């Protein structure tokens, strides 16, 4: 697993899927009265506060995809690094362009950026409804905000999930 894949796993699997989405599921059940645990609301507020850091992490990840996961990496090590200088002047670029086209890399990157933006908006909406107590989070406005954040976070997880997990050609 290379560094980018490791960072993606940490962000998408460890934090987003195992952390935030499970937390949002818990929060939903707090808001509908089936679970009693005020600590979940505190945790949700912390996540909202830390979202700006996570957002930056998400953007850093997607912005570095093209560079770190390009098949150009194969030309930096043997055997491809041993090719003629003349071949190395054009073949890596071709491989990269082919990879971008074949795997719709730019489209996927745009999709992820859009998903990040939607999560950003949803966090903003949740913050605005002041969901800092059980009573507040049970209000219709907060429950709708919670649902939108769940949907947006889920879409972001799926968008990151569709990105390559290894260097492809």
């Amino acid at each position: 697993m290379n560094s980018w894949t490791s960072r993606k796993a940490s962000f998408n699997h460890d934090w987003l899927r195992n952390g935030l989405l499970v937390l949002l599921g818990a929060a939903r059940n707090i808001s509908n009265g089936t679970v009693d645990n005020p600590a979940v609301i505190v945790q949700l507020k912390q996540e909202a506060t830390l979202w700006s850091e996570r957002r930056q992490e998400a953007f850093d990840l997607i912005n570095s995809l093209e560079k770190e996961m390009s098949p150009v990496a194969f030309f930096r090590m043997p055997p491809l690094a041993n090719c003629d200088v003349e071949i190395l002047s054009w073949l890596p670029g071709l491989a990269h362009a082919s990879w971008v086209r074949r795997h719709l890399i730019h489209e996927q990157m745009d999709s992820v950026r859009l998903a990040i933006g939607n999560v950003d908006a949803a966090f903003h909406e949740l913050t605005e409804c002041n969901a800092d107590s059980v009573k507040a989070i049970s209000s219709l406005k907060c429950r709708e905000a919670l649902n939108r954040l769940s949907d947006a976070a889920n879409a972001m997880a799926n968008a990151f999930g569709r990105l390559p997990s290894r260097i492809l050609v």
Partner: protein
Amino acid sequence: MNRLPRLLIIDDVFGRNVPGGHNRDRENLCAHFLLRDVTGDIASNTSRQKVLRPVADAVYFRGQSPSESAVGTTVENDQQGTLNLIREGWSVSLSKGDTPWSMVLIDLCFYSGHVTEESHRRMPGMPEGRPEDDDPRSYFGLILLDAIHREFPELPVFILSSKPREEVSLEFSRRGALGFIARDDMRGPELLQDALWQHGLLPDPSEEVLGNSLPVLLALREARRAARHRSNLLIRGERGSGKELLAAYVHRVCADADARGTRPFVTVNSAVLRTDLFASELFGIEPKTASAVDGRIGLVEAADGGDLFLDEIADMPSDAQATMLRVMQDRQITRVGGRKPKVVDVRFISATNADLENDPRSFRPDLLDRLRLGGTLWLPPLRERKSDIPLLVEQFVRQAESQRHGTMQREITPEAIERLMAYDWPGNVRELRSCLFDAVNRNPDVEHLVPGHLQIAPGKQEYQTPVAVVPQKENPNHKQSTDAIMNLSALLTMLDGVCFDSKDIHEWSGRLDDLQHTQAWVFARYLQAALDATKRRTSEFPDGLIQIHPAVKLITGDAALPATQAADVIKRLLVPLEDELSGDLREALAIALRLRPRSTKNSNKAS
């Protein structure tokens, strides 16, 4: 008592003990899936969360050792420890009569290796992970799945993971997992409830079908699966094993799942089908004002929209079988005296203890196919679910006590339980119930139920076909009466071991005729049982007509035996007793002699 299903969740993140005690990730997972954490470790004991309407109780296990780790610790996957825990909640629970695991949920990827400052900062107690941990080809979860399925093939296992399902869908199916629930799916609680309902091993919460043994839990699971559709069902099981209760369970779980509300459940007494009135009972009577005939709806119409339970279908006479087949094919009935057919939507749940496919009473195969269109449910006999006996004993003793005013509430002694567990209960749960009601009714003023209060056949360790020896007043063919019940195999074993002491001449000399005579009566009674079992009952002959050919096929086990040879067997068995016979045996010999008249040359004595 409404007990929750008990899940085992094997997961490195949610199963770990976190330094400091509080596993926030586990708490959130419980809140998301509506689980009550009953692990009993520090994490569950320090949690203040309350799940008000839990779907299940959950026991968490890391699947690794140590269960708690800090910076500097090395965490390794622990297959043996995991299997030991499963054994405890499975084999040990089953043998004690406790509820075993309803289901096991396993994660896919388990991070192992050293816990570093960085990995501990990201998630307390979690190791850095090794490259192979995240390789779908070597997920520890799949290795565990393999091992679990090999040792516990009946244990339902689901994958619970946030890894992409498509990465592992073929592998988890190959290795025996029944499904996959994405941990981050917002429909989590609904998906888990559905998985438990379809695949989990769940006791009957109403305790009508009482038991925690694996055979009963498997039967209940099959019943729930069958209840999801409206096709006819056949329930098979020995007499007294609870077939009607299982039918009621099918109806009940269907009603619980049905948004349209309660459907009717109508039981048909099989005796109804043996009378001339079966048509009016089943289909009702059209009212006729001119002749002042009161109308009434029949049992099938009363079950419209719901379920009709037909008990002991093997006793259904052939004309009733033909009628029922038409009803199932056309899905409509016409009341007796009526003209206009009425469409009915009825699920037929039928029950039998007979081997209908090979029953000489000739059950229509086309009707049998219709009756089991939605499947066959098998109820285990009590001897195959003995771990349920203590539960059943408790229930029946309390029922008996509540029905009798002034009866003391008694403790059931371990010796009494042992005595009850040693018997094989050929009459199954019904026989057990009768025994206990009898014990309570005859001993209303005692605080302890002891073996002496129980009236059951002694020394019956293995179940075999019982051979009832009928008292003289019921069977005039007998010279001596006894009301002992003995297994046929035990009888054969006993006879096989009989020896005569050559020195004890006075005991056995001159007794050949007596020995032959007794032997002849044993064979005659054997034949009598077969004649009773194969009688053909009609409306004209409700007591039944004997059929010598099916009876002899039954005792010889030869389905291809010609009728003439059957007659020869009858003659061989009964001619030695010709002057003493009466009733069915006399008639059987008469029929055999008509088929195969005596030769004028030979004596036709038994050879």
